[in-house]
């Protein structure tokens, strides 16, 4: 891992240029440019708000649009970072066949580039909070750490996925489906509070309730989204008990994912 960090430091300039390239290319010939980064979460927020008015989701004291927008910020980051990261090696096949540099640069820059959109969405969030008259507490200082966590969570899937995608393009087809399934298994549309209430308080699934809840929060995004809402909207520190299962999973998955990537890397040029 230390060697990995060293090579990454040596190639920091290249990563910077590639990230800049990703951003410029995405918006170069788009008339609305960077506005697209904002349109997606805002549209989803409006749709969810509309749906909510039919089915009724209890969002507590916090206005529902705000609650869901805060959930969408890490979720959209995770979704786009993993899907683009998984495609990044195959997408740069022409470079991989011609020039050598550490291949993890591709998924890494793709994931890091997505931080730009996340930053823009944070600005929109600030606007929304002003609109709803919400003052954030000092707990908002937790957010940078949470962002680092969601970057690592994305990488633990993107690295492995990018390597496997070189051999089996099935990944490209399967991933969008898995990700949209995962959205429903994450507290994006509904707050985590409701899941907790159903399973832990009401024991809705009987003896299986506690197990199901642990399974639910094993999804790192469950803890991350909840922590975003806690620190930004509720003025409370993140709940460690909710974050921990996901953190353990990411801590175990990331090195494995990196190892798979490094072992597959040497054959990329032959296979891609």
């Amino acid at each position, binding site marked *: 891992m230390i060697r990995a960090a060293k090579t990454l430091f040596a190639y920091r300039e290249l990563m910077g240029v590639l990230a800049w390239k990703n951003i410029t*290319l995405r918006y170069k010939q788009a008339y609305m440019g960077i506005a697209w980064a904002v349109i997606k979460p805002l549209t989803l927020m409006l749709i969810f708000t509309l749906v909510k008015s039919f089915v009724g989701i209890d969002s507590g004291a916090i206005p529902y649009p705000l609650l869901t927008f805060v959930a969408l910020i890490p979720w959209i980051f995770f979704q786009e970072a993993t899907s683009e990261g998984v495609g990044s090696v195959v997408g740069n096949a022409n470079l991989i066949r011609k*020039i*050598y540099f550490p291949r993890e640069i591709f998924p890494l820059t793709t994931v890091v580039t997505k931080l730009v959109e996340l930053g823009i969405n944070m600005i929109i969030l600030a606007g929304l909070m002003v609109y709803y008259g919400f003052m954030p507490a000092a707990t908002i200082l937790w957010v940078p750490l949470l962002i680092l966590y969601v970057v690592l969570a994305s990488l633990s899937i993107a690295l492995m996925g990018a390597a496997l995608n070189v051999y089996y393009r099935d990944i490209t087809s399967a991933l969008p489906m898995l990700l949209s399934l995962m959205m429903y298994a994450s507290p994006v549309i509904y707050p985590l509070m409701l899941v907790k209430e159903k399973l832990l308080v009401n024991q809705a699934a009987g003896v299986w309730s506690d197990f199901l809840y642990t399974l639910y929060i094993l999804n790192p995004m469950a803890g991350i989204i909840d922590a975003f809402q806690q620190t930004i909207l509720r003025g409370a520190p993140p709940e460690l008990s909710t974050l921990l299962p996901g953190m353990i999973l990411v801590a175990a998955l990331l090195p494995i994912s990196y190892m798979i990537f490094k072992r597959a890397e040497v054959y990329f040029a032959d*296979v891609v």
Partner: protein
Amino acid sequence: MAIIEVNHITKEYRLGQLQSLRHSLQRAAARLRGQPLLERPLFKALDDVDFKVEAGEVLGIIGHNGAGKSTLLKMLAQISVPTRGSVKIHGKVAPLIEVGAGLIGDLTGRENVFLNGAILGIPKAEIRRKFDEIVAFAEMEEFIDTPIKRYSSGMSVRLGFAIATSVASDILIVDEVLAVGDLAFQRKCFDRMEDLIKRQGKTVLLVSHNIRQVERLCSRVILLNKGRIISNGPASAVCTQFYEASDARISTSKSTDLELANSNEWATGEILLRGIEILDTNSNVINKLRHEQTVRIQLRYEVTKKIHTPIFGIGVHTTDFIYLATEHSINQLTLDYLDPGQHVLTFDIPSFPFMPGVYSLRAGVAEGNAARTIFYAENLLHLQVVSDNAEDRTWNEGLVALSGSWSYDTPLLHLTGKTHANS
């Protein structure tokens, strides 16, 4: 100390399609059940290749298509790893494999210089410093802020070459890049390469099909065939060997029988060529001859309709269709008419003037004083001119011998002044 050490490398590829996930799962299942696996056959792109390159050496790698040249370069550029053996490189490598590989159409020339520079590992500060030089070399001043996708293909290749050659590296790996752009730019690239080699003393590995270029730039050449090193030695000797091998390949790819399919034949049907042969002085059919040998070319024509005052022509051209010589029967052979039936035409060459290499024959027939062409065909028969000593080719470059003679004389009266001045 050798700057590049290639230790017995072998690269194997599996032939056929890469298998899908389903295949892989089925194979895994078969393995678990202990069933025999159907392996795809292996293909050796490189087979036990072993050589060293000293610092400052210019090594050429030549061979036919599929000989393993590009695979070898990929190993050296660390893009791909050998199946067995190892590659050790002491120094920074700049790969010029297909220049302009990383250029992106939507970005402008300026943006691409920085992007491609970073991909090739040039520090940003250095690109900034060399920026004007790169742009000037590529002759791009006017278009540098235009997206690359609006460039002509020659323009983007020029830019790619200019960026790639400004990498500060110890070892340059060059794959066919000198064949880019128009003639003037090719010349410029060639000069730049010579400058990198001769003045900056870089170690260069050059792959090219342009053997003349290799011969001129390289100090040592490796000839690959089917993944193996056939020979490894001084440029001229290896290139000569390659020429002979290619010549043999071209001339055996065509037998003395007429294969009119690829001979660009044009005929009205009044007269048809039924055979063409080269004979030596003993009337043996040959397809290899020596430089300045006495030969006879024999053509068998079948006439289907009476032809009045036919004129015959015969010519020699290179395999890339440069017409070297054409002879007409117009003043030597006067026939009032040709009756339908078989006719044999002979053309004697007292001393075949062309230098060692492969040549081809063309022939034509015209009718009457208006010289109406009734038959024409080229690429009819390949003939190989060989030389008895291997040095002929290196010493006598070119296609034709002037067969002149040298003499030497010291005009004493004129030189005395100079001789005195020197002493």
